[in-house]
C-alpha cells in the first residue's frame, strides 16, 4: 500500500511548524563594537549629539533620567560597547540639556567607573 498521498501533508506540516516557530523571540543583533581611539575624538564641552552619533553610531541604550542633576549633566546619556587593551568596556557619553557632550566614562568587568573626559557646565542652576 502506498502512502505517497501523505507526503505533501507532511511537508505542509513541517512548513507550518517552521512558520509558527518564526514568531518565537529572535536573536538580538550584535552591538556595534567601538574603539577607544574613536571615543577619544569626542570633545567634551563642544561635541554635539549629531557629531557623537557620526563618530560612534547609534547607542545601544539611551537613558534620560537625569532631570535634576547637581552638576548639570542633566541631558541624555548614551551607552556603547567598546574595547581597548584592557578588554571590553561599556562607554557612556553624558550630554547636557543643550546636547553637548560633558562627560565620558568607561566601565569594565572589574574596577570602578573610569572618567575618560569631563567638562562641567560653566554654571549650575539646580531646581526641582
Amino acid at each position, binding site marked *: 500500500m502506498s502512502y505517497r498521498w501523505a507526503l505533501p501533508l507532511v511537508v505542509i506540516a513541517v512548513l507550518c511548524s517552521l512558520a509558527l516557530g518564526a*514568531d518565537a523571540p529572535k536573536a538580538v543583533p550584535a552591538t556595534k563594537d567601538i574603539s577607544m581611539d574613536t571615543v577619544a575624538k569626542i570633545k567634551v564641552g563642544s561635541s554635539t549629539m549629531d557629531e557623537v552619533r557620526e563618530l560612534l553610531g547609534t*547607542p545601544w*541604550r539611551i537613558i*534620560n533620567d537625569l532631570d535634576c542633576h547637581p552638576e548639570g549633566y542633566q541631558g*541624555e546619556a548614551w551607552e556603547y560597547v567598546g574595547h581597548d587593551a584592557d578588554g571590553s568596556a561599556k562607554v557612556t557619553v553624558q550630554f547636557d540639556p543643550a546636547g553637548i557632550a560633558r*562627560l565620558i566614562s568607561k*566601565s569594565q568587568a572589574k574596577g*570602578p567607573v573610569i572618567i575618560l573626559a569631563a567638562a562641567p557646565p560653566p554654571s549650575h542652576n539646580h531646581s526641582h
Partner: protein
Amino acid sequence: MHSRSMPLARLLHPKILFVLLLLITVAPAYVMAGDHDGDRDRDRDHSPDYPPYGSHVPTAHFDHKVRPQLTPPAVTLLNDGSGRVAQSEWNMKLVGYDNLDGRSTYQPLVVRQGNRYIAYMAHHAGSAINRLNGQLENNGTSLLDVTDPHHPIYLSHIPGFAGSIDAGGNQMAHVCSGDVLPSNSRAEAKRKEGHYYLLRSNGNSSGLKTPTETQQIWDVTNPSAPTLLTTINADLYSNTHKNWWECDTGIAYLVANDPTQNWVHSGSTQHLKIFNLHDPANPEYIRDFGMVGQQPGSATSGACTPPACEGPSTVIPPSGIHGPISAGTEKNRVYMAYGVGGSGVVQIIDRNVLLNNCKSPAACAVSPSQADMLAPQKGWFTLPGGVLQGGHTSMPIFGEENGRTRNILEVTSEEGGNECTAGSAPHAVWLYDITDEANPKQISVDANDPANTLLDVPNGFDYTWTFAPHTFAVGVYPASLTPTDNPANLNSFCNEGARFGTHAVTELFYPPYYGKLVIASWFTGGVRVWDIRNPDAARPIAYFVPAPNGPYSAPYTVPNSCDETVGGAGGPGFGPGCTFSNSGRNGHTVFNIHTNNPEVDDRGFIYIADRSGTGMHILKLTGAAKSVVDGDDDDHHHHHDH
C-alpha cells in the same frame, strides 16, 4: 499475549503513524509561537474591591502599644566610591527579577487579569533593545506575566516617544477591567466585557505642546499584543504625570495642562483634567482643577496672601500638582500633593463637590473662579522644611483607635539632586493625623531628625547629620559629602552617584498591609518599610537594597542579568550589566541603585523599579515585618530582627 500485542500493532498502522508525526511536528511550533487563547483571558474578573479598583476602603486599627525602636543593620558599601558589592536586606527577601532590557523605570503596577498577574512597568525616556524583536525601541511600557513571581515572563513592550525625560517615556500607568468600569448601556457593557484597559501618560512636563506628551488608552486584554484605543485630546494636552483612575466609577484624574487655557503654576506646569473614562474609547470631560491661585487670571507674581497663597512655603503662582489619590465614593475624599520636591502643599478635597460643583456655568469647567476652586477644599497643610520639601505622594489611611475614628495621611517629598546636594534638605516621609481635616497635625515627629520625622533613613547608617546654619525649620545637607571633599565618609548613601531620599509610597489599599506598614522608595537607599500600627511612634521594620548588576554584582545574585541570554534568545548582551552609572558632584560616577517607585499586588508581593536601568525586583516580607502583617509579634517580642 494476543490482547497485549494488538494495541502496538495498531499504533504501527501507517495512518496512525502519520497522525502522530503530524502532532509531533506541529505541536512544538504551536507552543513556541505561544500566547494563544491564554492571552485573551475571559475568566471572571478578580479585581479587588478596594481603591483604585473599587471603593471599599479597609479600616486600619491603630494602637498605642510601646514597641522597641529597631536599628536597621548596616548596608555594606564599597569604600572606593564605586558601588555596592551585593544586595542588602532586612526582613525582606528577593523572590523574582527581570532586567526590563535595561530601561530606566518609573512605576511598577501589577494587575490581576483573569487568572494571571500582569506587571505594567512604566519607563522613563530613553531607548533600549527589545529582547523580543531585537529592535531598538523608545522606552514606553513593559508588560510581564508575574503569575509565578519567581519566573517573570516578558510579554511585550509598548514603545513610547523619543525625547527628553520631560517629553518622552511613559512613567505612569493605571489599568481597569471592562467588567468593573460602569456602562451606560448593555451594548457598552457587552463591548467591554472581558477587556482590560491601560491608561498611560507619556512624557512629563516639558511645557511644549507636542504630540509626545499625551494620555493614551490601550486595550491590553491580550498583554502580549496591546492595541491603541485612543489618545485623549491628542492635540491639546501636555504636561502629564501621575494619574489616578477609579475603576468602579470610571473617574480619571489626569495630570495635564492645555497651554492655550492659561492656567498658571510654579514648578511643574500641571494641574488636573478630570474625565469619566467608564467607556475608555469615548472619554467624557468633566472639569479642570488645581490649587486655588492656579486658575486662569490668577496672579503670576507678588506676595503670598491667603487664601490665594497660603502659608510661608508656597509661592505665587502655587506649585503644580504631582498626583492625586482618590479614596473613592465610600470615603468621598481625594488627596492632592503639590510641589513634587519643593514648596509643598497637600490638599484634602471633597470628591462629590469636586465632581459636581462646576456643572454650570460651562465656563467653570475650564476657567473656574476662586470660589469654585475653594468649594471642594476641606483642608490643606504645608510640609516641614518650607520651600525645601514638596508634595509628591499623599496616601490616606482611614482607621480607628479605641473605637474612635482616626485618619492618617502618608506624605512624601521627592529627592531631586544626586549625592545629597549641598544646601538641599533630606527628603523623607511624614505622617499626619487628618482626623480633623481642617487642622491636620504631624505625628511621629523626631526633633533630632533633619526632616523632623521618624520615617527617615540614616545616611548610610554611619553618619551623623550635619546641620548647616539656615533659615529653614529643618536641616539641610552640608557642603562637604563627596569623596573629593570628605574622604572620611565614603561608606555613605550620599556617595552613590545618584539621589538619596524618598520618592513615593505604595498606593494600593491592600488590606493586610493597610494601616500597618508604610512602604517607601528611597532611591540609593532602596525600598524602606516602617511599622505604623502605633502611628505616633513609627519604627523601621524592613528594607531591601538591590545589587547593581554592573561589574560589582559579580557573581550575579539574580538570574536574567543583562549579560545573560533571555529565554534562549539573547539579552542586550552588552557586557558589564544593565545598571547605569550616574554622576554626582565633581563628576563622581558610580553604578548606583536608584529605586524609583514601589507597589504591592493583591498577594502581598512588593515590586520595585529602578531608575538606573537595573530592572524590576519582586520582594516579599519576612521576619519581624511579616509578623507585623500577621499580627503575631505583640504577645512575644521578637529579638531576631537582624
